[in-house]
């Protein structure tokens, strides 16, 4: 938990307490927080205009609330929170992460394509499991759910393995 004193990032303990405070507030005022469900909620809102007949027959859309819901407000709020936090932060954002650039070069197309594929996989997986890092691991484990703990252990293990395959020893050659 050691961190440089000059790092603009919050250290672990206060950040974890702050997030837990928000999560407990959400349990008290709404129920288990979730973000992957917000994708279905957004799609449901879009498809309600484009293909109302389609969503009326699909179980996955029927079981989720539409856009006028806590879920939609929550994910939009996250984008707003990220925007406010980013605007008041000293480290500029990058479209291509440093480590990625060292490994695969400056190509934005390559990075955006990889991000798209990664995004596809995380949402496909999250919808199959019924939740994501927040909706299943964090919310679930907070409720002592075995599903959340099981999901959490496997996503960490597989992501660590995947990152090794993607990056190898990138960034460590000279150290």
């Amino acid at each position, binding site marked *: 938990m050691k961190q440089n004193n000059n790092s603009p*990032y919050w250290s672990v303990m206060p950040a974890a307490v702050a997030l837990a405070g928000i999560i407990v507030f959400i349990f008290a005022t709404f129920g288990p927080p979730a973000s992957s469900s917000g994708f279905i909620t957004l799609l449901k809102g879009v498809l309600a205009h484009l293909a109302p007949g389609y969503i009326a027959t699909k179980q996955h859309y029927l079981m989720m609330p539409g856009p006028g819901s806590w879920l939609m*407000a929550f994910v939009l709020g996250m984008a707003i929170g990220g925007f406010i936090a980013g605007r008041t932060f000293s480290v500029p954002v990058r479209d291509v992460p440093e480590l990625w650039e060292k490994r695969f070069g400056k190509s934005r197309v390559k990075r955006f394509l990889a991000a798209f594929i990664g995004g596809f996989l995380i949402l496909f997986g999250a919808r199959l499991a019924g939740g994501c890092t927040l909706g299943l691991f964090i919310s679930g484990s907070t*409720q002592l759910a075995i599903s959340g703990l099981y999901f959490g252990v496997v996503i960490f293990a597989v992501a660590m393995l995947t990152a090794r395959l993607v990056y190898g020893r990138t960034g460590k050659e000279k150290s």
Partner: protein
Amino acid sequence: MTLILLGLFSGIAFGFVIQRVGATNANKMALAHLMREAQIPQFMLLAVAFSAIGLFGLQAVGVGRTMVLPTSLVATGLAAVIFGVGWGISGYCPGTCWAAAGEGRMDAVFALLGGLAGAATFAQFHETLIPALYLPTSQGPITLSDWLGSSWLAVVVLVAAMSGAAWLVGKLWGRDSA
């Protein structure tokens, strides 16, 4: 309307905090996965520990709503493998990509678009995949309390496990980094 405002407020606070700890930074997420930076995994583990204590308190006074998702040996496990590959490639999860997109990271916008495509694809095949993969090995909404026979004992065990894991991450991560 109240629920929408509550959702918006909760989301803004959540997005702000995860940006400040570096979880919206795909570079830091990659360093976490590569065992070079300990902060993000420790943050997640301790947030769960503190939240569990807080939720236990809420339940003691009868406030709040819970909903435990079932554990499906095959579907939850397979989903976690697919999710882990995507997380390792992109450095984003379904929550962080919203906050990171708001922060102005263009790769997060593409992760979000990919996420919409992935969610739509799953929704298309829900009727096939859930009966095939999820339901046969579903154990129901089991919890640690069911296993241990006591909810306070389960909270103690969970908090000990999460704190222990955070401690272990502190020991093992960042050892061989520059």
